């Protein structure tokens, strides 16, 4: 199914990124994978509570998308947001500390996995509400226009989010006001247990763009270069005053929706088919990397994550005496 959807794998993009850039991107993808594998371990050991949403298998979308934006741009992230957060340049140690609910974490342990933000770096946060970031992106777009800066905002959301009213209202507004918003839809084929085929009667989520008079494209979300290219083009358009773009990235999550998911709605074969299209393996293959070099890079990522865990574990818990802080400015 995804094959027919991924009509435009972009040859052009492959020439845009240098070998060095691609190596950096590969490293970030490995870092994301190791971060999330570690998160899972910590959860299993009872060191974190709550739930979490892992993006293992979707790393190329996060890395390709952030890679095409600048430090001045804005990010609005989803509940499945560790990857985008790391790709945005966030520190693994401060993220890990947040994940473990520590005072040193990005949100002082108040937000947790689903709400990691780094407002200083224009990362306006992950969101626990499906489609919660879309209306906000309209406001960020308005603000960029009012301040007359060369910025764009990228809002990330899932296939499932595109069935919320907020998706439709926001895209329409961004369209009529020609705002510099990039709507990045990560189509990982499921919204929890709901397959895309059963939740909408269209083949491509990007087709919805036409209803609002904006540009819509579908790309192979496991191809980091294709994602980069699409977001790069969308940014150019936005900066040139040509308005928002809806980009659909076809990808797949290997793990369950969250920790409590028994995955009765899909088959092992299906998961395996997608694992064969693994974004990290693909990029490593494209770069003609030896197994030794690849393992070496993974080792480096592991070491960075280990250090992040050490930092988080050594960090203090929030003080209960401060519990009322931060509700009002």
């Amino acid at each position, binding site marked *: 199914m995804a094959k027919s959807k991924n009509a435009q794998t972009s040859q052009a993009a492959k020439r845009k990124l240098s070998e060095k850039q691609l190596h950096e991107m590969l490293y970030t993808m490995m870092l994301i994978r190791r971060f999330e594998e570690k998160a899972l371990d910590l959860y299993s050991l009872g060191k974190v509570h*709550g739930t979490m949403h892992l993006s293992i298998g979707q790393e190329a979308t996060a890395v390709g998308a952030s890679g095409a934006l600048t430090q001045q741009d804005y990010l609005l992230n989803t509940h499945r947001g560790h990857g985008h957060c790391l790709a945005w340049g966030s520190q693994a140690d401060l993220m890990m500390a947040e994940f473990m609910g520590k005072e040193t974490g990005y949100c002082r*342990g*108040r937000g947790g996995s689903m709400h990691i933000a780094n407002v200083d770096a224009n990362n306006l946060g992950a969101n*626990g509400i499906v489609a919660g970031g879309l209306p906000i992106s309209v406001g960020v777009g308005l603000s960029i226009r009012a301040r007359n800066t060369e910025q764009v905002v990228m809002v990330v959301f899932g296939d499932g989010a595109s069935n919320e009213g907020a998706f439709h209202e926001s895209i329409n507004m961004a369209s009529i006001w020609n705002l510099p918003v990039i709507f990045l839809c990560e189509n990982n084929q499921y919204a929890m247990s*709901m397959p895309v085929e059963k939740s909408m009667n269209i083949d491509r989520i990007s087709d919805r763009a036409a209803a609002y008079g904006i540009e819509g494209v579908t790309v192979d979300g496991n191809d980091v270069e294709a994602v980069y290219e699409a977001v790069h083009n969308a940014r150019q358009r936005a900066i040139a005053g040509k308005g928002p773009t809806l980009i659909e990235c076809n990808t797949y999550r290997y793990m369950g929706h969250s920790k409590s998911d028994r995955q*009765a709605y899909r088959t092992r074969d299906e998961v395996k088919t997608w694992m064969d299209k693994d974004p990290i393996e693909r990029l490593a293959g494209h770069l003609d990397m030896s197994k030794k070099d690849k393992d070496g890079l993974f080792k480096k990522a592991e070491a960075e994550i280990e250090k992040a865990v050490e930092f988080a574990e050594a960090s203090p818990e929030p003080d209960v005496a401060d*519990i009322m802080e931060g509700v009002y400015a």
Partner: protein
Amino acid sequence: MPSPNGTREITYVEAVREALTQSMQADERVFLIGEDIGVYGGAFGVSAGMHAEFGGERVIDTPISEAAIVGACVGAALTGMRPVGEIQFMDFITLGMEQLVLQAAKVRFMFGGKATVPMVLRTPGGSGTGAAAQHSESLETWFTHVPGLKVVMPSSPYDAKGLLMAAIQDENPVIFVEHKLLYKVSGPVPEEPYTIPLGEPNIVREGKHLTVVATSIMVQRAKQAAEELAKEGIEIEIVDPRTLNPFDDSLMIQSVVKTGKALVVHEAVKTSGYGAELVSRIVESEAFDYLDAPVRRLAGLDIPIPYNRNLEYHAVPQVENIVAEARKLVRGEY
């Protein structure tokens, strides 16, 4: 209604499921609609196995579209069906508020009493699972503030089954608030179908020193507190409204007349919480003349629910807080 005594024990989640199953077996107008309630069995497993038993026409999985889920219930209810919608977490009802508050609640009145909206909206509320601020809300008073809606909050498996079966048979829109931490709590539940009338409170425990009025998970915590307090010779009486609106307050008022002291406990934030309603009812009644101490509220802090485990714990009343507060009231320290 059958007594819970001497029957088998099941969990709260099983009790909710049994109420749904028996209601669907008895009345083919009843159907379920919500996100991931089919093969997945619901985010908390409430409808596990029901898709296999009743099929996709009666256990309907929806896209993520809360406004349309609530609206679909309204439309189906208006035209002869008895929908039971599930809102996956209480927090997400915010996306369905218009259909609930401005449509479901008011249609009958606006149409001069000529329409009925017999629908139930089930949803799990509360904190304690580490799900943080957007998945831990206790919003029940948003609904008690809307004439036309009924609001039910069962605190035990027995109440969950009987109240849900009554809610499904009721002719009005009912918000049925479950609690995530109660799902695994076990208790005696009769196997046969039964209903508990909406609006009737329950005296969960008798005592003479203090009336504790508690809702949902706080009833369980008040029961544990009562055991601690009994060791010190303090006997608290626990009143569970079970239905927040409508609520027949006479049992609560009689209890306060007897004990002369009242403590109200709920998880939702204190400011403008349901406790304010309960306290008002007490002080407006004849119980006022019998009060020996200020009527106190113990409730969630006025903050969103924090992620950190320890902060989360301290954000809402725990057993030890109820013990301490009850002790002070009974010892005349207020």
